[in-house]
């Protein structure tokens, strides 16, 4: 239980950091999608099913924080996680020498898939006349999306090592043994 609480705080802090710090520090108000990077990290390390709860929680927190209708980012993260697990299972294990390259391609794919899913979702909602769903994502064919992909690739190593450090910390390990 306490492990889940710690994960919740990691997700919460990540969302606040994304909206209050990263968007402010980087030029043009664009920051890396830290929650998407967390989803990639968890799915690559634990697989789709074990990381499902964390992905849903990350999507829920992002829906609350970014004023989207509840469900939009949950669905997007679950969709992305499913396909990342597909890629990581087939390529990351087999081609160990190409790990960094495959991981980079996974981040690119995840960022594009997340955006494509949200754009399709907004399109479908618009078709059904549901307008109160929050701000639309950036268009799929836009330069901003390329910048986001770049920022996500740059930030992923930081998230990866930070999360690895937290997961290997004595505190979490001790808790893991007790519960």
């Amino acid at each position: 239980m306490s492990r889940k609480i710690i994960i919740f705080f990691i997700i919460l802090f990540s969302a606040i950091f994304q909206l209050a710090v990263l968007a402010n520090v980087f030029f043009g108000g664009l920051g890396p999608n830290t929650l998407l990077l967390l989803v990639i990290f968890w799915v690559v390390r634990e697989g789709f099913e074990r990381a499902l709860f964390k992905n849903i929680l990350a999507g829920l927190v992002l829906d609350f924080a970014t004023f989207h209708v509840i469900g939009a980012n949950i669905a997007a993260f679950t969709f992305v996680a499913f396909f990342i697990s597909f890629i990581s299972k087939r390529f990351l294990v087999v081609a160990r020498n190409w790990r960094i390259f495959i991981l980079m391609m996974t981040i690119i794919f995840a960022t594009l898939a997340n955006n494509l899913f949200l754009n399709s979702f907004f399109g479908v909602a618009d078709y059904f006349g549901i307008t109160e769903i929050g701000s639309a994502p950036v268009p799929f064919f836009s330069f901003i999306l390329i910048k986001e992909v770049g920022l996500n690739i740059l930030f992923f190593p930081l998230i990866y090592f930070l999360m690895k450090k937290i997961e290997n910390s004595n505190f979490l390990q001790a808790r893991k043994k007790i519960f």
Partner: protein
Amino acid sequence: MPKKYITSKIVKLVSVMVVCAFLVFLNPKGFFNPVRGFFLRIVLPFQRVLYGSSQRISETVSFLASISEIKKDNADLSRENNFLAAEVARLKQLENENRTLKEQLELLPRDKFSLVGGFVIGQDAQGSEGWIVFDKGERDGISPGMAVIVSNGILVGKVDEVYPTSSKINLLSDSNSLVNVVDLETGAKGIIRGEYGLGLVMDMVTQSDALNVGDTIVTSGLGGNIPRGLLVGKLREVKISDDRLFQKAVVVSRIKYSKLDTVFVIKN
């Protein structure tokens, strides 16, 4: 043994998608607003501290990056100062003319606004400058549709959603934002909205109206809670709309939306 196509993974994926579809299509957005309000109340203090700190970091980085340019800027500023001294004399004469024009246009004096000031504590991280989070809400008398300005009376957006202690402000650069505006020089009326890649676009201007590059665009006061005469920006480029029925123009605001730190909501 036949291959199993419906795995537990696919079942879980489909289940999440179905639940999300139910949440989105059956529940209106307002259904979760009390929970969202509670969530925003919890994160407000952290957001306030982090946003303030990151603003200072951002300013310091910008300052450090600009040191090499300071010498050149100094020379430019000296030249500009001489030019401006001459301009001041000319502008004093124009000031009287401007006062008369304002009276004729019945612009609402900016000191008559009832303003609620506060800090920006979060923003859209997608780089589309769509919205910001303001640290004042329902408790401070804020309601949806109210105009949001910066200290010198430049319109930056409208209040979209209000929670007890915070509110979401849709910026003019958001693609969903629509505000009625008028060209101060020619009187041409239109609608300002955000457009990806272009910033602000003044649209729906009839072909018979005149739009000139450099014209000042202000709010027209038509519809909604936006008072008349709030500065929006200046015209940079005039185009014909895709359907060739209207004219549209790219408007440049003096405000960098991604760097907002203090804003004011007009209550009346």
